[in-house]
């Protein structure tokens, strides 16, 4: 079983400072960590490998510092790690990101399963997984909470939608995106951690991929969406408004507030 895990390095979200006045974000005090959902994706892959044999390859697209994250992935059980890093990949939206990742997966050759996190904590779109599946022309299941069965031909998963759980059988190769409920990522052993510190990471640049893809779909140029500006929602402190009146008046005012905030239709 050849399993590919897609992993993204993200800023430590609790430490990013949001300047509510200037509408800017300051990442300087935030370290870089693995997108938490991607640890669940990796754990799922390693568990399948432990059961069914095979190998796990972690792939990330990002700046060179993502090597650190990929080393951590090796310590946690990945067999191989590839970083797609090039200035010309930068500024990618989800479409260009997915295209680049799908190109790398194709270049790798045969695979059975691709596993992604449900979403990232920074871009937060949850789009890359399904888009990669489309570029690869394989079926996918999003929000997978449980892997029930897997063999060389198919995988059975439980995917959680708002109202119902779907039990889906996907023929392989396929892609799944996983939620935090699927497993508890294991901690690496110190020994594996130290060993991984010295492990080589394969790096693919634009030139490595441009032979097998259409370059105009990479990076900023290949991205149809544009972030025009970012601003911070006006929260900061709480409003602290008192609602007063008779119980009936108060009830009416609460309903009005819920309406204003579209909690109620």
């Amino acid at each position, binding site marked *: 079983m050849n399993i590919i895990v897609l992993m993204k390095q993200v800023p430590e979200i609790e430490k990013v400072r949001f300047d509510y006045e200037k509408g800017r974000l300051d990442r300087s005090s935030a370290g870089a960590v693995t997108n938490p959902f991607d640890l669940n994706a990796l754990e799922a892959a390693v568990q399948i490998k432990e059961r069914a044999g095979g190998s796990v390859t972690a792939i990330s697209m990002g700046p060179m510092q993502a090597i650190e994250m990929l080393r951590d992935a090796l310590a946690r059980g990945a067999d191989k790690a590839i970083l797609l890093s090039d200035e010309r990949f930068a500024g990618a939206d989800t479409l260009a990101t997915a295209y680049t990742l799908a190109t790398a997966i194709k270049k790798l050759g045969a695979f059975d399963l691709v596993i992604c996190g449900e979403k990232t904590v920074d871009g937060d779109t949850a789009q890359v997984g399904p888009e990669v599946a489309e570029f690869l022309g394989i079926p996918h299941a999003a929000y997978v909470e449980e892997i029930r069965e897997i063999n060389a031909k198919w995988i059975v998963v439980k995917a959680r939608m708002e109202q119902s759980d779907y039990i889906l059988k996907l023929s392989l190769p396929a892609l799944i995106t996983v939620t935090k409920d699927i497993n508890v990522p294991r901690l690496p052993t110190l020994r594996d951690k130290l060993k991984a510190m010295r492990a080589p990471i394969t790096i693919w640049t634009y030139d490595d991929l441009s032979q097998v893809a259409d370059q105009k779909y990479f990076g900023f140029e290949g991205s149809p969406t544009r972030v*025009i500006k970012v601003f911070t929602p006006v929260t900061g402190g709480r409003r602290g408004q008192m609602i007063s009146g008779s119980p009936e008046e108060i009830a009416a005012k609460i309903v009005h507030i819920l309406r204003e905030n579209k909690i109620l239709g």
Partner: protein
Amino acid sequence: MGSECGVLVFAEQENGEIHNVVYELLGKGRELANRLNKMLCAVLLGFGLEEKSRELIYYGADRVYLFDHPSLKNFDVIRYKHNIVKLVNEVKPDIFLIGATRMGRSLAPRIAAALRTGLTADCVDLDLDDEGNLVQIRPAFSGNIMAQIRTRTRPQMATVRYRMMKPLSRNPNRTGEIVRMETEFLENSGIEILDRVSASGVNLSEADIIVAAGRGLKSPEDLKLIEEVANLLGGVVGASRPLVDAGWIGREHQVGFSGNTVKPKVYIAFGISGSPQHLFGMRDSDIIIAVNKDPSASIINFSDYYVIGDLYEIIPPLIRELKRARGVG
């Protein structure tokens, strides 16, 4: 009114029931289509839904494209994508809106990739600029910032968060056209739905609306009041630790340091004092409404709106008002 489709809305359904977010999208879509001077269309896939497609017209659609076929009865992302992509290539809408439900967020990116167009995730607001381009506002960084996004390609696709847009009121006199589409049947999509079961269990950490109670509650039976408010709002019940410790309610309902960390759009706290351990679990809620008899309770300093009063006096009229608002009883 122009004749082309300006805005297309995906009419998500499950079990033949149209998701409420669809009516909200039709509300917003109507406004955008009017400003573009084009038609508002909806696309509905399923089986035996002729009747339901009328509803989409009552809520604002000019035209409904209906794919009615047994293979579309349940959500199969490949079959849905396949037929929708074909439709979009035919009608070429400027804007294509999909609810940011889990179904929508699984389907939309596949369609976007197939069409090689841009997709903006989980929008909370939409507008048009002077040239008629879609301006999309969405939260990112786990809700800490807002981003304004434009799409260079067509259609401009966006998933839109539930409970963000206002639906029009239902008007059965509104007229429109239902276009029955030829479904292209994919024998083998690579996906087989083995079973579909109603999701069970509370999931506080993902709830949008939490109605919580604390020791201000006098007896376990009174939790029914809290439940009723929660049900009327489509939310779930939360609780402070003392109620859990007393065995009045299961531990899965506990909010706080030794319970769940929650981040709903609205958190209503009845008879909760606001201890640091409780606040730890709910301080990131978008809106906090507190009802407490004691003006010195610390939750008041952490709320957006507060009522100094007896929950037993506030809840009954609140239930009445909510029922009225929802048109029940």
